[in-house]
């Protein structure tokens, strides 16, 4: 009897619960439909245009992620200042949904897949060369998306069918006249080194940099006396510094992130390995913070333009907007923010000119034609393949002073 009673109770209660859950689910579904975004469709009046962004907010490149995030926010402020993107007489606010890739390829792939599942058509990132190939694989064979990325690894797809509607927001890094080759030439011109040491991470970005730098220095008659790679999570560089010191270099190419270059320079200073000049691409003055002035010569390739240079009037409005929003001046590494700032405003302009969000071919074509836009920071242009061209800079630090030099468009 007791077992039957238990059974009776156990049959009825779940059915009641099921009904409750059904009602609850229905309510949630209705609310979600009412409140949710539309995944990038702007056919309904005032619906938002949602861009899907994937970049690191945690992990070794999180500092860059913060700047990308701020560049995006500042661009959205410009786009949405009057209500958003005007299509058929209706303003559509532009929004960005950011997914943290945790500075991993798997995280970037998950993020892109999530945006795809959410029906996004406009993608910011994946951003890192170390994760780009993996994550871009999700989007590579699709024609229903526009991808905007600063990743060097994107460069090999530009101008190929797989790179259709792929826009790279940084000027060429990898080509013969690309940024890395120019960095080597600038180092040779500035420091006239005869013995160069290189220490870069063992990852796809390092894979791209090492052969270009090696070629660039060797073409100038400079001997590469030390060339090693390290695991990207390495923060103790003492064994490398010890080995490097034995080769007596006069210029040292170091790692490409401040989170690596900072401890490398700090430990070099602590070990009195300070006579050489140091430099890399993608780092900033922040790398010198813990060197107590012991490192006197340091150079870094600014992949866009220096946002912390008060003498650059072209970026004065950007700096003012940055300060107004965040209560601080843009940091030295803040030049990464420009990788998305101008392209987002350009995208908004392109959509407005085309008058639709779903005609991606027309929007992509328009992106290559735009030459002016509101609150413009850089003189960026996309060629017909989607490659950005602009004037970018290299910083030279010497005894406490920083000088910025410009490179012509390539």
């Amino acid at each position, binding site marked *: 009897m007791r077992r039957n009673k238990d059974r009776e109770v156990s049959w009825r209660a779940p059915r009641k619960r099921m009904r409750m859950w059904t009602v609850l689910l229905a309510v949630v579904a209705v609310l979600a439909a009412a409140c949710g975004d539309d995944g990038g469709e702007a056919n309904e009046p005032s619906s938002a245009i949602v861009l899907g962004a994937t970049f690191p907010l945690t992990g070794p490149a999180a*500092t860059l992620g913060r700047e990308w995030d701020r560049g995006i926010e500042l661009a959205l402020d410009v786009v949405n200042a009057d209500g958003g993107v005007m299509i058929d007489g209706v303003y559509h606010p532009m929004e960005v949904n950011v997914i943290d890739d945790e500075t991993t390829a798997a995280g970037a792939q998950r993020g892109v897949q999530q945006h795809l599942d959410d029906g996004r058509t406009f993608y910011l990132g994946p951003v890192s060369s170390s994760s780009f190939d993996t994550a871009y694989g999700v989007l590579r064979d699709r024609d229903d998306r526009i991808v905007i990325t600063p990743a060097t690894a994107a460069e090999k797809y530009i101008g190929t069918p797989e790179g259709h509607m792929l826009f790279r927001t940084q000027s060429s890094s990898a080509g013969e006249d690309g940024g890395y080759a120019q960095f080597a030439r600038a180092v040779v011109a500035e420091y006239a080194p005869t013995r160069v040491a290189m220490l870069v991470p063992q990852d796809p970005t390092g894979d791209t940099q090492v052969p270009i730098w090696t070629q660039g220095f060797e073409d100038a008659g400079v001997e590469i006396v030390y060339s090693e790679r390290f695991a990207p999570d390495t*923060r*103790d560089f003492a064994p490398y510094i010890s*080995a490097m*010191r034995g080769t007596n270099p006069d210029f040292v190419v170091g790692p490409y992130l401040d989170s690596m270059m*900072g401890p490398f320079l*700090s430990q070099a200073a*602590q*070990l*009195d390995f300070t006579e050489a000049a140091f430099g890399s691409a993608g780092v900033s003055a922040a790398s010198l913070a813990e060197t107590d002035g012991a490192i006197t010569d340091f150079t870094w390739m600014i992949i866009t333009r220096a946002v912390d240079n008060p003498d650059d009037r072209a970026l004065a409005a950007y700096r003012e907007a940055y300060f107004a929003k965040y209560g601080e001046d843009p940091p030295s590494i803040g030049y990464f923010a420009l990788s998305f700032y101008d392209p987002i405003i350009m995208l908004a302009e392109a959509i407005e000119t085309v008058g639709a969000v779903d005609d991606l071919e027309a929007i992509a074509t328009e992106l290559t034609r735009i030459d002016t836009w509101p609150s413009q920071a850089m003189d960026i242009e996309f060629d017909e393949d989607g490659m950005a061209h602009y004037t970018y800079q290299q910083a030279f630090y010497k005894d406490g002073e920083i000088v910025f030099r410009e490179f012509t468009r390539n």
Partner: protein
Amino acid sequence: MLVETIFAGLFLASIYALAAFGLAIVYGVLHVLNFAHGALLTLSAYLVFQLVTSGWPFWGAIIAVTVVAAGIGVLLELFLFRRVIDRPLSGLIISIGLIGIIDSLVAVGWGPDPRALPRMVDGSMTVFGGIIAKDRVLVVVIAIVGLGLAQLAITRAPWGKLLRATAEDREAAAMQGIPVLRVRTAAFVVGAGLAAVAGGIIGTTLPVEPGLGDNLILKAFIVIIVGGVGSTGGTLLGAAVVGLAEALSISYMPTSTAQLVPLAVLIVILLTRPQGIAGTLTERV
């Protein structure tokens, strides 16, 4: 260069030992692989940074954060790990969940930028022709003295004997009247406190950043297995082997190969001496 390389190995061994010692105690007594140990180390380094930048003296900050971490250890043991006392797998999953929680706290509290604790001492010294950073010498000395004393306490002091007895056989220890649950809590307190000390000291030579402890904890597990699971003495030996092997391989081998050396050491030990260099198959703590 050999002197510098050997010293670099000793430094690596020191930070691995600092990271691994508390972990070994917790595993020895609780039989829980506490992955959150690394996150606690990171959190402690940030807390020490916060206090030091607020004007606290370095060692005062270390002591204060050690007390706080020990308190966190008590809470974790009483409210989480004790509830899964007979389910080590559940304990493992809880510890992995704690990593996410603590890492999020760190991210919210301090953001993504690496921070730097002031060096304990500046400059370098020349030893047998090799140039060695003084702050690293101090870290090695602190690790040797501190962990040596801790090991002495575990082997000689009454509470250390209770730890060892509980680690050896919990049921037998309980039958002998040892307050096993209190010993478990004490082990967690010691483990968390050691994570705090390790975080503060390591933070004076390496950047204090979100992944600090997570990166070290993987090496710490290798160190524990190489030295002998559950043996704190073996942990110190394992740290020396892994640290020296890593530094020598970085200096004298291509880096791509050098990165595999700690793992190769681990595999060789597992194949030839599964109980670890110093462990026996039954020894705990």
